[in-house]
């Protein structure tokens, strides 16, 4: 009965028939049944997710930004000349004064150094995604492992990781990041790593541990233990996959905080990266263009609005996902 072991709480598909002794066939059949289960729960989840209008809106915004990120290399390869449109080293020779207002050639104008704002915006979108997703993956990888391990073993291991999480929650993270980025040349990847580690050992670990505790007492864990599953196997094959929906939710929130942290640090001029939305605002601010109000709107508004929209889109997507994966919230009548 290999195939019924992993998802003990879900009834095995009756049409799958009794297990055979053929060596390859059982494994294939198991894979097939698992795929169908995953697909079915995905379809159900997607239906609930899309039912909430907020989730749909968030998804549309995220897809829109993804398209923006992908369009930059395409545009650079085809219509945009690298001398003029490069987000860092380009210079708009055609404009008589910098920053130039929006025109047909530069739809969002140019910045005080003569670089095309739209090109900067699109270029930065890609790196924001890379940053957010790297940080989120690191967070989730750490938090699910820590949560599952401390729920499974309890005792000293649990106490250690939970106290550590308490400590990390109490740390003023932006202030620490300011010190870190001030003293080191922090690149985007290391920033993502730091944010991911802080998030992974912090609050997310506590939430995932409490979820893992409720999974640990379900019958299929006992079944796995009875059939001789080792500790490693029980943790990583039986507990962790059941934590993944909830950890997906916390990925969303991590993306929001990572993008926000990057923007703040770049705004303060502390990061060693070439271009980002925060740096765009930093450039405008140090040039003194921000207090001129609406006159140079294209220097601030596109970048500021992008940060707000992408952050809130991931946050709202997380909220909509909450309705799907959080059993306490689903189908609440108010």
């Amino acid at each position: 009965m290999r195939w019924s072991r992993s998802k003990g709480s879900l009834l095995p598909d009756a049409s799958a028939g009794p297990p055979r002794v053929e060596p390859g066939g059982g494994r294939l059949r198991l894979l097939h049944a698992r795929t169908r289960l995953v697909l079915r729960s995905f379809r159900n989840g997607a239906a609930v997710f899309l039912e909430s209008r907020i989730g749909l809106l968030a998804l549309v915004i995220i897809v829109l930004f993804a398209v923006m990120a992908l369009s930059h290399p395409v545009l650079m390869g085809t219509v945009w000349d690298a001398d003029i449109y490069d987000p860092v080293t380009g210079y708009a020779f055609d404009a008589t004064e910098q920053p130039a207002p929006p025109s047909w050639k530069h739809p969002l104008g140019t910045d005080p150094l003569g670089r095309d704002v739209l090109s900067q915006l699109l270029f930065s979108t890609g790196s924001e995604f890379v940053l957010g997703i790297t940080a989120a993956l690191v967070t989730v990888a750490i938090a699910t492992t820590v949560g599952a391990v401390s729920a499974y073993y309890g005792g000293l291991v649990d106490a250690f990781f939970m106290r550590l999480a308490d400590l990390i929650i109490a740390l003023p993270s932006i202030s620490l990041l300011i010190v870190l980025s001030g003293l080191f040349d922090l690149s985007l990847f290391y920033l993502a790593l730091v944010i991911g580690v802080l998030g992974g050992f912090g609050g997310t670990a506590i939430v995932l541990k409490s979820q893992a505790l409720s999974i640990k007492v379900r019958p299929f864990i006992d079944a796995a233990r009875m059939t001789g599953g080792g500790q490693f196997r029980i943790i990583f094959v039986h507990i962790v996959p059941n934590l993944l929906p909830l950890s997906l939710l916390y990925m969303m929130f991590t993306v929001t905080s990572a993008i926000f942290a990057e923007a703040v640090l770049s705004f303060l001029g502390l990061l060693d990266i070439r271009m980002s939305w925060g740096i765009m605002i930093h450039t405008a601010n140090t040039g003194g263009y921000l207090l001129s109000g609406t006159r140079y709107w294209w220097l601030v508004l596109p970048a500021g609005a992008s940060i707000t929209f992408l952050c809130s889109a991931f946050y709202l997507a997380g909220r909509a996902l909450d309705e799907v994966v959080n059993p306490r919230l689903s189908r609440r009548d108010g």
Partner: protein
Amino acid sequence: MAGYLLRRVSQMILTLFLILTVTFVLVQAQPGDYASFYALNPDLPPDVREQMRATFGLDRPVWEQYLIHMRNTVTGNFGVSFGHFPRPVLDVLAERLPRTIVLFVSATAVSFYVGFLLGKAIAWRRGGILEYAATISGTALFTAFTPAFALMMIWIFAFRLGWLPVGKFLDPLVWRDADVSSTSVFSLMLLTAAAFLAFASLVSFASRRSQRIGGRRSAVPLLLAGALVLALAWYLSGIGNLALDILRHMILPVATLTLISFAGTMLLTRNSMLETVREDFVMAARAKGLPDAQVRDRHAARNALLPVVTSLIYSLVFAIDGSVIVESVFSWPGIGLTLLEAVRTEDLPLVMGAIVFIGFLSLLAHLVVDVLYACLDPRIRYR
């Protein structure tokens, strides 16, 4: 109670120790050596350099330097700041800490109160236009990019309308002829605020205990009278205009921090209220025929408050970090701006001192909220 406090304080000390260790490791690991920074800095006279070397043990092995660092921190000896040269770090920080605390405490208090009131109201009447307006604007402000939003506030209220000063702590034109320092005026203001708060809590405690029917109602005039006396004292003291100047500079940062952070409390209160209004005791209160507002405020909201206070722990750290950002945008010379300036100029002693103070502040805030929570919830018996 004592055991609980003791445990929390020891946990706090452990965290502080962790912060200290992390900052020490960071400073040691950064490119450029702490020791050579002193040795090669031409601005430092030789005798000062010698003194620094003795204070930080720069010619000793790293683990010994670590121990010295710990001892120095415990005794409050952070060394001398490079940026504010002859002044010791502790002196600089002691001047700036109250400013940050005031900014942060008043913003947290205001945003918590506003968020709680709004959340209560929108949960009570669901589907109203207030709910949509508050939710959408709250979320938008919550996710707005803080520096850009702060700059927008400056542009609107200080630059365009000219109602409030652009930034900084005080207006030099007002203070030119003053013979008192801004720090002493500010400490006096703090004292006044503390006195008023003590008076207010005393009055509210007394009015709650009073058995007389009109006992509660007499509290408001009493509070007004107290405020009037304090205001009069400031007016007669001759430095009232200076205090007013500082207050005027405070409005915009506090308002900005409040607008950014009230939505969190509001949405949480709303969720918690929605759960509470379905409880039996709310229905019982309604069945007794109590007025609507009384059921909402006395029966539902009181019980909905608990999870919101828990979340305050998380929002406090957010607020401290937020005040770092807001301080840097408004040039408010508090701890956050000091940290930022020190990091930019590689003023390492000041960096270490500032991060320790910020860590201490957030831990202290945690402790206060924890104790507050234990006091509010009778089910928690200081385990």
